[in-house]
């Protein structure tokens, strides 16, 4: 029975009232007295030497307050990278300086060269056009293979090459893997590209810097998924502002999908410039700027080999990947193709030998970093594509091949360094078989064929690691931050609660789900709980939202803090009822003494805590406010089975998604409606990647897909009605809520299902095609059919 309140209830999203009525407070809605505007003059060449920047004429233009160039930032730090990867040989990755404004060279189209601060934005833009640039074109490196060749132009002159790192995982597995592949009964090999994407959240990035001379405090308002991380990175590494003099606020944020995790140069610029000119400085990205300055996602080129024995058991997996870093290392870029990718290469399967090699490459393109799923979609895509190809080569049923190789015993330590605590992949596959009506597929295919269309069915079984992350583990792997989460639960005298959480909500619905958890624990109405987030001056140090970590890590911190609240409240209740704390029970918002009819209401205990007239002051402080920091002991491992049915028009190559079913195991679910929504959105983005989205550069490093005229976003008509089901659940064993996280699953699970379905459709029509690189646009599908 669905519940109507607390954990398991589909409470309507309370934040939607303001989002849908235009009363949200986004960063661009904030305007400060005396604020000036900045316009960034950006490079229109991919690679060039800056021989001169003449700002004299521009300085004299109306309204200009000050013009900044790279030289103004020589004394401050570069934009830091938050993760250091160690290569196969034990050496640290090559880490170039990333100046706030380009200095010496420009390294990608969109690299900011100068910043004009003026009274109005139009004046800033006018003045920027009067800046005279002397930039000597240099040959650009765009293709990763070419970038690694001897004599290739170097993106960073002071590095030895364009190779950031050559990473092997697990290096000790390598020989055994090579051996297993040599002695295998069958090896399936697949070369593929995981296409470069641009996140395109609805709200472009915005930053406002402000400086208060009286207090010496700087404030940055920014569209961030993790304001504390920005405060730490920008304060400590770039501008040298101690944290008690720096406040970072991220109010309502209109979607991030990863692209708003990172610390960006524009944030540092606005904070720096506000102090320099003693006025607030505001920047709002245009959509065109977003295309060439938001970190891009994916962009892997991979060869994967899957070895099987004579009974079709997987015996080894070997992968070689080139991962594009772009021109600079964005905040978490090095971790994405490594620890968020290599660790997931076992998938749901008990393959004993796995070796992953990744070469990260600098190119003259926009930096690449985490995008919804970050590394895990890349892992799932390779694995689930190569398994499908193997099933075809061996002439076996792709579902049976998967089932045969599923991990069935938990905990399970993979050969790629992680331990799955729990899961039941057969159960999610059973659920999928139920909801996807595989039995009816043959009839649906026949009907499609009658209409001149090819129909295909594609399966994917993904796994991902969420609830990021155990701090000590990621510390060993090179993270330069901890990855715990914090919560302060403040109970007011009249019984209402305010929860200050380090998790940041930018569409996920935290303001609805988090109160459901606390309401359940205390037995009160969720309406009595309010969530505060996104302001470093209000919230304890937290690491923010990404990697499906908010409920698993942030929610756990909240549970821990609430447990402390309840423990203290029980002591107060015991005092009020003259009983022993051990006998106090909390149920439905009232404390009672076990075995008696004595009871005191939640609100009375809260009042006693703040009006301590009758209170055990000798043993207990007044007040009811607790903080907890929660550091997870493991990742969580959501997994699922997805099925996609497509129709292909053989004349045009047009693919339409006819059915899409998702059976996920998210462990316990707090709000099923919100989880459905997360899965829907994720699948939509996955379908976007599979069929539509392609960030493309030409060989000179010009961004070809620089607007919505050429970058195809999925629209409502591109996706079908989904069937999603998260009833098969194996709760996480190590966090208090038993939750796993659901934010990225859809984006991870859908692309392989779509591509597998298209290949199935084409082969059903007699085509021999075994692979097409995403996006499977009509022209690519048609071209593949001609080959």
């Amino acid at each position, binding site marked *: 029975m669905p519940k109507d309140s607390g954990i398991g209830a589909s409470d309507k999203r309370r934040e939607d009232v303001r989002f849908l009525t235009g009363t949200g407070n986004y960063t661009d809605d904030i305007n400060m007295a005396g604020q000036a505007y900045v316009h960034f003059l950006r490079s229109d060449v991919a690679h060039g030497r800056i021989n001169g920047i003449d700002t004299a004429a521009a300085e004299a233009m109306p309204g200009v307050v000050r013009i900044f160039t790279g030289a103004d930032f020589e004394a401050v730090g570069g934009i830091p990278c938050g993760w250091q990867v160690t290569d196969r040989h034990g050496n640290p990755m090559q880490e170039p300086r990333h100046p706030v404004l380009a200095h010496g060279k420009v390294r990608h189209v969109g690299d900011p060269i100068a910043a004009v601060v003026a009274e109005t934005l*139009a004046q800033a*833009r*006018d003045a920027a*056009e009067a800046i005279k640039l002397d930039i000597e074109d240099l040959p650009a490196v765009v293709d990763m293979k070419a970038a690694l060749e001897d004599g290739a132009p170097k993106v960073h002159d002071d590095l030895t090459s364009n190779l950031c790192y050559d990473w092997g995982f697990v290096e000790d597995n390598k020989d055994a893997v090579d051996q297993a592949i040599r002695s295998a009964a069958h090896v399936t090999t697949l070369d593929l590209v995981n296409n470069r994407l641009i996140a395109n959240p609805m709200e472009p990035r915005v930053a406002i810097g402000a400086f208060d001379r009286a207090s010496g405090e700087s404030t940055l308002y920014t569209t961030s998924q993790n304001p504390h991380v920005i405060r730490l990175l920008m304060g400590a590494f770039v501008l040298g502002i101690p944290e008690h003099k720096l406040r970072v606020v991220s109010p309502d944020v209109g979607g991030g999908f990863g692209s708003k995790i990172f610390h960006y140069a524009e944030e540092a610029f606005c904070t720096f410039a506000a102090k320099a000119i003693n006025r607030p400085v505001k920047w709002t990205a245009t959509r*065109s700027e977003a295309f060439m300055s938001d970190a891009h996602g994916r962009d892997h080129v991979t060869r994967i080999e899957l070895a099987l024995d004579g009974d079709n058991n997987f015996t080894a997996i070997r992968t070689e990947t080139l991962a594009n870093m772009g021109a600079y290392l964005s905040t978490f870029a090095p971790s994405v193709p490594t620890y968020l990718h290599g660790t997931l290469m076992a998938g749901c399967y008990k393959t004993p030998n796995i070796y992953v090699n990744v070469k990260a490459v600098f190119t003259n393109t926009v930096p690449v970093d985490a995008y919804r799923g970050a590394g895990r979609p890349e892992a799932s895509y390779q694995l689930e594509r190569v398994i499908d190809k193997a099933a075809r080569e061996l002439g076996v049923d792709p579902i049976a091949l998967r089932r045969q190789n599923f991990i069935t015993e938990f905990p399970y330590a993979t050969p790629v360094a992680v331990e799955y605590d729990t899961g039941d992949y057969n159960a999610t596959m059973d659920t999928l078989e139920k909801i996807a009506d595989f039995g009816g597929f043959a009839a649906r295919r026949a009907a499609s064929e009658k209409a001149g269309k090819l129909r295909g069915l594609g399966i994917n079984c993904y796994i991902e690691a969420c609830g990021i992350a155990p701090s000590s583990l990621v510390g060993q792997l090179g993270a330069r931050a901890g990855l715990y989460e914090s919560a302060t639960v403040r109970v007011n005298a009249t019984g209402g609660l305010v929860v200050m959480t380090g998790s940041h909500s930018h569409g996920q619905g935290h303001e609805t789900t988090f109160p459901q958890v606390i309401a359940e624990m205390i037995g009160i109405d969720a309406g009595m709980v309010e969530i505060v987030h996104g302001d470093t001056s209000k919230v304890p140090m937290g690491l923010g939202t990404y990697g499906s970590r908010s409920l698993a890590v942030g929610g756990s911190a909240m549970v821990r803090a609430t447990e402390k609240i309840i423990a203290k409240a029980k002591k107060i209740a015991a005092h009020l009822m003259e009983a022993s704390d051990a006998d106090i029970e909390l149920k439905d918002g009232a404390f009672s003494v076990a075995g008696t009819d004595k009871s005191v209401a939640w609100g009375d205990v809260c009042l006693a805590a703040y009006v301590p007239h009758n209170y055990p002051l000798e043993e207990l402080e007044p007040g009811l406010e607790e903080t907890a920091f929660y550091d997870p002991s493991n990742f969580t491992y959501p997994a699922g089975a997805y099925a996609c049915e497509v129709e292909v028009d053989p*004349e*045009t*190559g*047009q693919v339409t998604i006819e059915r899409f079913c998702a059976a996920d195991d998210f462990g316990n679910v707090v709000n099923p409606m919100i989880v459905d929504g997360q899965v829907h959105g994720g699948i939509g983005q996955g379908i976007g990647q599979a*069929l*539509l989205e*392609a960030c*493309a550069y030409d060989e000179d490093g010009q961004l*070809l*897909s620089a607007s*919505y*005229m*050429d*970058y*195809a*976003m999925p629209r409502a008509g591109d996706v079908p009605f989904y069937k999603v089901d998260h009833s098969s659940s194996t709760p996480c064993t190590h966090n208090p809520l038993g939750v796993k996280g659901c934010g990225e699953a859809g984006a991870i699970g859908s692309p392989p299902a779509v591509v597998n379905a298209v290949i199935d459709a084409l082969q059903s029509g007699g085509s021999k095609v075994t692979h097409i690189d995403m996006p499977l*646009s*009509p*022209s690519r599908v*048609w*071209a593949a059919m001609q080959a």
Partner: protein
Amino acid sequence: MYNFEFVKPSSIDEAVAALGEDEAQALGGGQTLIPTLKQRLARPARLVSLSGIAEMKGVGAEGGVLTIGGGTSHATVAAEAAGSYPALAALAGNIGDPAVRNRGTIGGSLANNDPSACYPAAALGSGATIVTNAREIAADDFFKGMFTTALEEGEIITAVRFPVPQAANYQKFEQPASRFALVGVFVARGGDGVRVAVTGASEEGVFRWSEAEAALASDFSTGAIEGLSVPADGMIADLHGSKAYRAHLVGVLTRRAVSAAS
């Protein structure tokens, strides 16, 4: 956007006079021009809005000819031509999204002659006449290659006259991002024979596929053009399709248009 002056005349004569000034430019629905201005890719000193000119608006059918005012929105054409010229109404009703259709005009679309736009295919495929403040131009003489037309500086499209064919159909294969025509084919069968106009495909902009026209004139059936194809040479190649793909689509869409119009 740069600063500009804005005038909104209420008659064609006033508009022509206003456009006679230095660096003046006509503003139709602004669906192409305003984004261009926002990107600072154009710098007119004054914009002469045509949206207040009543005599340039509306759809009227008379004697087998449909006359559409040059300032008529796509949405109006979609609604008001539905009875008299359904193929044209359907084309207009599938341009862009509702906002684009409510603002964008037929005059603006034809004057702009985007190689991927829909209306040029309808005008050329129907053998329409483009009426300006100064003269009448046959569609066959109007389109001069990508973004180029026979219009003189300051000349305004005041109306477009479409002879209504016996049968017609427009097949648009959408470019996945912009949803303009990756290739669009307009086929019309009238008293003077068959016209096949292709947009989206050629580097020269909209063109007539005369081979198909000839084949269809004697036998208006898909069979008549089975196996016919346009050469890939001269087709557009971009992110969304190769020359060969576009050439292939021309054949597919022409057959579909013939089939739908038969």
